[in-house]
């Protein structure tokens, strides 16, 4: 794991089942994450992924690549375009900093509408 290393591209199919099951598993019961009629009434095009799930996906993307031995220290994310039901969310990542055992990985998650999430994950690798 060196500066400049790229993470393999990863695709998540945001099916309605995925959007709803992750919203409920993160105990987020806002209607825009499970009720399409209300989501549209509120000016959205469909239900969309909640922020706690985006945090979880970013963490998973990094630990799937880095392996289960690393410790996750920080997940910082900025949200852009919503990830709607039926969108494909494509993740890209790269190691941008390394200080001894501490690595910073920059992550972008993108849909056809633009960047859904940009952020950094800080991990600590085993000695």
């Amino acid at each position, binding site marked *: 794991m060196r500066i400049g290393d790229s993470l393999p591209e990863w695709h998540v199919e945001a099916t309605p089942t995925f959007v709803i099951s*992750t919203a409920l598993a*993160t105990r987020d019961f806002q209607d825009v994450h499970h009720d399409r009629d209300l989501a549209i*009434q509120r000016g959205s095009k469909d239900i969309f992924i909640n922020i*706690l*799930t985006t945090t979880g996906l970013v*963490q998973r993307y990094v630990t799937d690549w880095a392996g*289960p031995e690393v410790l*996750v220290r920080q*997940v910082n994310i900025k*949200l852009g375009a919503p990830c709607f039901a039926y969108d494909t969310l494509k993740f890209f990542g790269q190691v941008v900093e390394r200080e001894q055992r501490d690595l910073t990985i920059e992550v972008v998650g993108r849909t056809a509408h633009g960047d859904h999430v940009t952020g950094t994950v800080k991990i600590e690798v085993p000695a």
Partner: protein
Amino acid sequence: MTDKAAIEKEAARIAEQGECAPRLARDPVNQPMINNWLEAIGDEHPGYTGTAPPAMVQVWTMAGLHGQRTLDDPLGAMMSILDEAGYTSVVATNSDQTYHRYLKVGEHLSVTTSLEDVTGPKRTGLGEGWFVTTRSTWWVGDEAVAEMRFRVLKFKPAHAPRPETASAQSSTPAVQPAPPEVQAIRPSVNRDTEYFWEGTRQGELRIQRCGGCGLLRHPPGPMCPECGATKPKYLVSEGYGVVYSYVVHHHPQVPGKQTPFVIALIELDEGVRMLGELDGVPSVGQRVEVVFTKVDDDLTMPSWRPRADR
């Protein structure tokens, strides 16, 4: 006092109060909720038996299906103030979480939150709004185990969804209600172009026609380049053409638009070329037809969509 001053005063008052009283999670950290989370996220990490994924920290203290905010919750208080000021919609924009250590099954978390910053009003792609930043700390007993800076945008929706407007006669293309996320950049309308935008409002695509020699021209101008006459008229296009050329715009971001989008140069059957957004996968030579999208009472935008060959 202006709205801005009143909101800032309330924000300062809430920030002054500091952290709210600790709010206890409904359940201790537990394996069934961890398993549900892993299953939904699709995470097969083998280390989460007896230990929770760090990114779950906020899950433990979510208010739940019938959750109500406590009276001293600073985010709730700030949301009510902005609701009253007309900023009724909310969207999360930033979450910065720091995990001091991993959490064990059986540990019972509580959370405290303070208001860090309220900034606005800002113009955003979604509408005018205020950014509200809070800072939360999760505790196990007296030990701080994780922290989060959380920012939301509380905004006035730029365009509420509209009911279907009456469409024109069947021979002319229907005027569609705008998708709610559309917030078009407005054209500058002047005496040369007024007839064009008046036309789109009526579901007509108008082409400038010289009052002297009859030459069709677009974009509109005050004088005919052929005969010099300055009394232009117009004719109404049938609304069909072919893609002469196009670009796919990826960057930079355009207010109210989601990238990528296609801007095509359409050669109308009447002979002139016209720029417009094309909805669909573009190709040169493709047959297209005009679509009118009503933005509001003053503005209807023409765009293009592929047309089946006849």
